[in-house]
């Protein structure tokens, strides 16, 4: 079961990055790309987050190809479910924000 917890930006973008398999540096680049350079994942933070996500079963390491020391990761079904919950939560935040301020998402 995925409880409705608020994901941090780092976790959210890591999960989004892993809809296609990537290794550590690839996740850093993808996250920067997603956020237009606003969110930068430092190596220590990313490594810790990858371990946490693996323990939760939200991502998995792919079997490493011969000769490569770089590990690739990929999101799992449970991870996708977590992203879906987060998306609903974010939409609620935006919806309420817009309704109260009368503003658009800009």
């Amino acid at each position, binding site marked *: 079961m995925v409880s409705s917890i608020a994901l*941090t*930006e*780092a976790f959210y973008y890591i999960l989004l990055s892993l809809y296609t398999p990537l*290794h*550590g*540096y690839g996740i*850093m680049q993808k996250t920067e790309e997603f956020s237009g350079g606003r*969110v*930068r*994942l*430092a*190596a*220590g*933070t*990313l*490594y*810790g*987050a990858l371990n946490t996500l693996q323990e939760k079963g939200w991502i998995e390491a792919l079997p490493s190809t011969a000769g490569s*020391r*770089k*590990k690739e990761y990929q999101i799992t079904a449970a991870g996708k479910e977590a992203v879906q919950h987060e998306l609903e939560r974010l939409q609620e935040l935006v919806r309420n924000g817009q309704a109260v301020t009368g503003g658009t998402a800009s």
Partner: protein
Amino acid sequence: MKKIVHRVYLVWNYEKEIQWLNEMSRQGWQLVRYTPFRYEFERGEPGRYQYQLQLLDKLPPEPEYEAFLEGAGIQIVGRYLRWVYLRRENDGTPFEMFSDLDSLIRHIDGVLAICAVVFFCNLLPLFSLLASPTLIPLSLVNLALALFVGVGSLRLLAKRRALAEKRSMQE
């Protein structure tokens, strides 16, 4: 050209240690190897490398993490217990090991835990003072050490508190 520096690394001053290594780099001295108390610098292009220190969760450091760092262009130049000395080529952006408040606070907690152990281990002999007066000189040395660590850790504690306060409102 090489330069060897002998120096004691004080754990609670780890940020100063990082500053020192980066300052050396700016002056054209790049740390290429570190073993406890011994720093080996090589003459090179000023500011070519950026340095960082990290306290790892486990001892010894996992080879998997080393490979992970390598993939991100980060090299391990030395180890000291659970500490690793890291460097990467200066790409003009700040070199940090932690990019969010949670992981930053967790890292500081690890450093503070070490400080606490050193502090209390040096505080314990104080009780022997009560048992045998002949041990007084020795316990005073320990007491001085405990004070040294304690005062040194205060700045780190203050920083941790400020970060935790920030974390209560933002990520």
